[in-house]
């Protein structure tokens, strides 16, 4: 979606145009769902939180002054809402079950190993402190720049870089402890 088109949709959404609201949701729903899922590692929680985030966004869109991009503002609300959720209540079943493991036959050994690593990675990410987890996901998974992350978390670019480095180091340590790395 072009920047101009998005700005136009945001202007219309501020006036209560439902079609504009729908278009913006279609644009960002998968992205926000993916981000929240990686934070919570629970699909049901992610679905509910995604809905809550969009309700919050469009009820308060009149307060969006346009100082940052709409995407940054959206991520900011999603991050704060999800961190509040994680602080108040740990996600129920923080790791998704991967289902029954296939027979460890030679042909599926790679699949088994991949799923094991993925499960460990999932667990390792959830063991990170909430803020480091958020920065790791925003940078490594969602591809936001440090400037955008600083806008989301309300900190300086330097702090974001340092926190991201700490997240990577901690994640590495956790995975080494589990003999994955």
């Amino acid at each position: 979606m072009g920047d101009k088109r998005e700005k136009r949709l945001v202007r219309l959404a501020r006036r209560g145009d439902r079609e504009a609201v729908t278009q913006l949701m279609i644009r960002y729903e998968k992205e926000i769902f993916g981000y929240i899922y990686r934070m919570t590692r629970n699909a049901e929680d992610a679905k509910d939180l995604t809905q809550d985030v969009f309700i919050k966004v469009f009820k308060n869109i009149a307060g969006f002054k346009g100082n940052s991009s709409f995407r940054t503002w959206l991520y900011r609300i999603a991050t704060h809402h999800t961190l509040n959720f994680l602080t108040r209540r740990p996600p129920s079943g923080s790791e998704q079950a991967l289902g029954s493991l296939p027979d460890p036959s030679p042909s599926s050994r790679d699949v088994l190993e991949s799923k094991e690593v993925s499960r460990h990675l999932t667990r390792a990410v959830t063991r990170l402190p909430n803020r480091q987890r958020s920065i790791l996901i925003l940078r490594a998974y969602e591809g936001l720049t440090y400037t955008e992350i600083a806008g989301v978390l309300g900190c300086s670019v330097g702090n974001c870089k340092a926190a991201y480095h700490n997240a990577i180091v901690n994640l590495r340590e956790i995975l080494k402890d589990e003999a994955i790395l």
Partner: protein
Amino acid sequence: MKLSCKKIQLLMIEAHHGAALSPQEESALKNHLAVCPSCRAFQQDLVRLFEEIEADTVPPLDDGTALEIREAVLRSLPPGEASPPLPDRLRGIIRNGPWRPLFVPALTGVCGIVLGFFITAAWLQHRPLRTEVARRAVPSTALVRQASLFQESPPPLEVLEDYVDVPDIYDSLDDTAMQAAISQWADEFPEVFQEGSFNGTG
């Protein structure tokens, strides 16, 4: 340039994300890795870590769930506001439009043009006609044949000049205007217009 392990590791992370390192940074990184086994191990683990991160997928958000979310959000919103009335919209456009700095000069220019138009129209309406000028300039002693005799062909100016001191102003009158002037003279000075006063031969 000598950098700490933390800075070297930061450079490795940024290089993985596609950041371009300066020649000094590349040189510092290469030299550090040659002598620091801890950072060499970090580099190998980093490669593996990002491979796993890239392979880490999210369950897709199916269309049905996405539709449920959108409907729930729309239900929660208040009814859409009606567009503000035109004066408010116009006020908004004037206040907030990107061309706002040009608005006042443009409006002033348009008002000036309209005002100039009306002033010009009023002046044109009240400007005295040539026949009026001709009438006021008629000498009281003009000896001109009755205007009826000249309905179709007024005497040439050089003929008139033999009888009267025709003011220069009449040089510029065309035939129609001259006829109108002669008609008015005939009305005002009937004694002057006597048959035979002018034999038309100069």
